[in-house]
């Protein structure tokens, strides 16, 4: 365990994991919040759009990674489209060790596509429970939308926001297939390292140490989460 924690590899893996979290979670949160406001309104085609928006909940991370490979590969949708439009003359490379920053971008796109719906479902459910009259009252008193967001909606939504973000953080710690499939071993994170050490190096003790670290990390975040869940119950 100590040997893993003190290795130089550990620092690299942890940094990658945290960088990915930092890139993915805020994007998902903003998109999910916007979608929450959108789907609270009534408009034509709402049902179909809602079905499509939550569809990725049931799509595996393995499939999602392949979908984004199809979009971004040298002969994929994006490159063919841009070439056809004459924007670029050579394909943009997303994959390979030399293009690690692009691989990072591909992973972020894939995860935002696939898992924003989880954040959305939680925020949307929380938003439904907010007393409509409070929001209407703030409209009557002439608060602008940013003001309403800042002083009324976000504070009322706080319990849902906290739990949605935490559940997202925990699931993101287990991100595995999209990273391996889009970046190979170029961007090792906690889960892919566990997989690699066990499956390829056949080093069970070391793999257990990595898994244990994921477990402890999860436990620490869960402790915060359970506490928040309790307080939010009391408030209601």
């Amino acid at each position: 365990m100590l040997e893993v924690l003190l290795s130089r590899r550990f620092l690299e893996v942890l940094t990658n994991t945290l960088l990915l979290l930092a890139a993915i979670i805020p994007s998902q949160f903003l998109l999910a919040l916007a979608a929450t406001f959108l789907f609270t309104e009534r408009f034509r085609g709402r049902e179909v759009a809602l079905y499509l928006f939550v569809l990725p909940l049931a799509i595996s991370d393995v499939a999602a990674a392949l979908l984004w490979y199809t979009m971004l590969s040298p002969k994929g949708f994006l490159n063919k489209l841009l070439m056809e439009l004459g924007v670029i003359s050579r394909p943009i490379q997303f994959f390979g060790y030399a293009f690690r920053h692009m691989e990072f971008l591909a992973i972020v796109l894939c995860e935002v596509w696939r898992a924003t719906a989880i954040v959305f479902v939680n925020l949307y459910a929380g938003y439904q429970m907010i007393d409509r009259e409070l929001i209407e009252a703030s409209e009557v008193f002439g608060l602008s939308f940013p003001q309403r967001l800042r002083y009324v909606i976000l504070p009322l939504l706080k319990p849902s926001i906290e739990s949605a973000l935490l559940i997202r953080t925990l699931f993101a710690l287990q991100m595995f297939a999209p990273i391996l499939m889009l970046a190979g071993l170029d961007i090792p994170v906690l889960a892919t390292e566990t997989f690699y050490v066990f499956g390829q190096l056949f080093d069970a003790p070391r793999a257990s140490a990595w898994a244990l670290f994921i477990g402890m990390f999860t436990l620490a975040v869960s402790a915060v989460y359970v506490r928040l869940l309790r307080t939010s119950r009391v408030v209601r």
Partner: protein
Amino acid sequence: MLRSLLLTVVAALLSLWILLPLTYTFIAALADVKNYYERLVPTEYTLENFAVFFRLGAFDALLRSVAVAALTIVISFALGVPAGYVLGRLAFRGRDALRLAILSARMFPVMIMAVPLAVLFIDIGLYDTLLGIALVHAALALPFVVIITSSIFLSVPREMEEAGMVFGLSGWQVFTKITMPLAAPGLTAAAMFTFVISWNEAFAAAILASRERTLPALTVATTVAGIGGAAPDPYRFAAAAILSLPAFLIMAYMRKHLTAMWGVR
């Protein structure tokens, strides 16, 4: 009116963001490879990609995936439905604590379960078996099954059960003739959700088997550069199409239960 139109446009853009990768992958999976490479929208279509994909071991993997998912449903329901019934129906000391404990078990990372179990499974002969994979998938699905079924049983009105007893049904008859039929649609949704968990799970399936691979595990092994995967493009398109197919059917049915399954409360 203008506002509603604007919202529709925004929703259409959001739908496009979700649909584009899916649609284009299905197009790619059905297209002739050479034609696909030359054109943005292919003009020649064939089932050859799927035929090759299935011939290269994916068909067996697909059957294994279905078998593992079925086993997962059986195991997790056998353990989870009674527990859900108790949590939803009976009041007892420590019920809330138990609920909370089960809720937090949903956060349990699969890594910490799969790695030690792989070592254990090698010793007791469960490594590389469908039952071994299904056991881990059932452990992942169990908290969801308990929480979902408890809320389903909670929603079956107690008065109807009591009415059944008044008319002379035994406790077991009340359960099979009144409670179960009323709970059936919810339980179907829970079964579908369990199917999705197992069908989509790749980490444990890849760690716990080297020959008996499920479809996601096979796909990871054949597509990840650096661990010996170098599957050609058409293989990847076909894999993506087959893997995401169940989602369309299942999500249409599960709309009502979204928050129960992916929500936190």
